[in-house]
């Protein structure tokens, strides 16, 4: 991989990878660490990635594994408990919720999702991954991906349409433009 090729990969996947990391850990600093670590590993393993088109799934797989191995297990991110008891949404709260979807609210809602659903639904919403690619990246059967996408969306709707949840959840740190080097 040449410098130009690596730069192109960073340009193409830096933002999506950061979004994925942020949805997983709900912390801008750790999201940045995860993102940078994934690119560092890509650079170190460039010989193994002969087909540049594979760098996308490689990056996201690496980041997801690192999150599971080093971050989630270290309990750096307290797991958000999701109340699975569905609240019957009324029409007004539904409309209000749909109007208020913005980046921070979307992240808050993702943070409240059951952890099994968070990675596949985020990859889905990045729109760069087909369900087959999500299956490969997360090493899940296709049927499981479809099932989790369906259930994730159901949970998201419940979260976003519940006024109580929206007002009580802690705001997700939202970076303006965090920096790395001094």
């Amino acid at each position: 991989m040449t410098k130009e090729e690596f730069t192109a990969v960073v340009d193409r996947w830096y933002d999506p990878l950061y979004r994925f990391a942020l949805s997983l850990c709900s912390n801008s600093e750790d999201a940045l660490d995860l993102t940078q670590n994934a690119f560092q590993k890509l650079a170190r393993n460039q010989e193994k990635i002969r087909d540049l088109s594979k760098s996308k799934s490689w990056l996201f797989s690496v980041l997801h594994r690192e999150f599971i191995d080093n971050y989630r297990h270290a309990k750096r991110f307290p797991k958000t408990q999701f109340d699975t008891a569905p609240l019957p949404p009324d029409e007004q709260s539904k409309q209000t919720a749909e109007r208020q979807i913005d980046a921070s609210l979307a992240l808050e809602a993702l943070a409240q999702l059951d952890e099994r659903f968070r990675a596949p639904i985020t990859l889905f919403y990045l729109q760069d991954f087909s369900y087959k690619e999500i299956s490969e990246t997360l090493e899940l059967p296709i049927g499981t991906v479809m099932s989790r996408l369906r259930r994730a969306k159901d949970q998201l709707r419940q979260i976003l349409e519940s006024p109580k949840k929206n007002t009580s959840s802690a705001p997700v740190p939202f970076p303006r433009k965090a920096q790395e080097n001094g």
Partner: protein
Amino acid sequence: MDRETAKEILSAYRPNGTDALDDNLQAALEQARRDPELNKWFESQIDFDKRQAGALASIKGPEAGKKAILATALFQDEAEPIEQPAKKKIVFVNWWRQAAAAAVVAFAALYSVFLYDRPDPELGELSHASWLHSVSILADSALPLDKRGNQIPAIHQWLDQRGAPHATSLPGSLTHETQLAGCRIFDLPNGKKASLVCFAEGSDFVHVFTVRKSDLQGMPIQEQSWERQGDWNLFAWSEGDMLMTIASKLSPEALTPLLSQA
């Protein structure tokens, strides 16, 4: 297929329409066209998905993070292989190598300032100019930050906990008009500490180095004047025992408004 199965399959349909020709989704899409209730559910879901995807797409990674990724990748010419032409290879410097190199740079730079027991005439006198030279070398070395953060009180508390000096107050314009990135601590050869607090202004940086004047062994200090060392514009001022020195590649004209309270 029943309606619930169709819904599960259609849940994998991306709202940008990329999956319209996917073989596995075709049957469910066709069923949605024939089943008004399923179609209504599908349209509602597409609308919901578009909003979610749009919200997520509005999130941008910190620009400096991308710069750091590209900046820390080094390109080394490989020895020419037998079967293929030489190709530039990307390698990342291990963090510990960076840290070791940084320590060497920091020591070499700061040693010229702190001439204690064995003053070396070749290194020159303990002067303000040598201090500024040291600061410019440290700024040039683009060392990684020890602590990232965007809140001044938290950064100052972190420095306090480690016995590192920091500005008692910073120019209001600097803190309001730029983005705090984080800080780094330097160990001086005399066992004392200095600190760097880094701000980003667009794609440029404003570094604020702080050292206790009492740790400089009476070094004469020239305050409130611009100096240029290499690529860096430098400006020093003091408050109490703290000597602050700004290093930035921004021009004095661009920096002056940021230092209006300096």
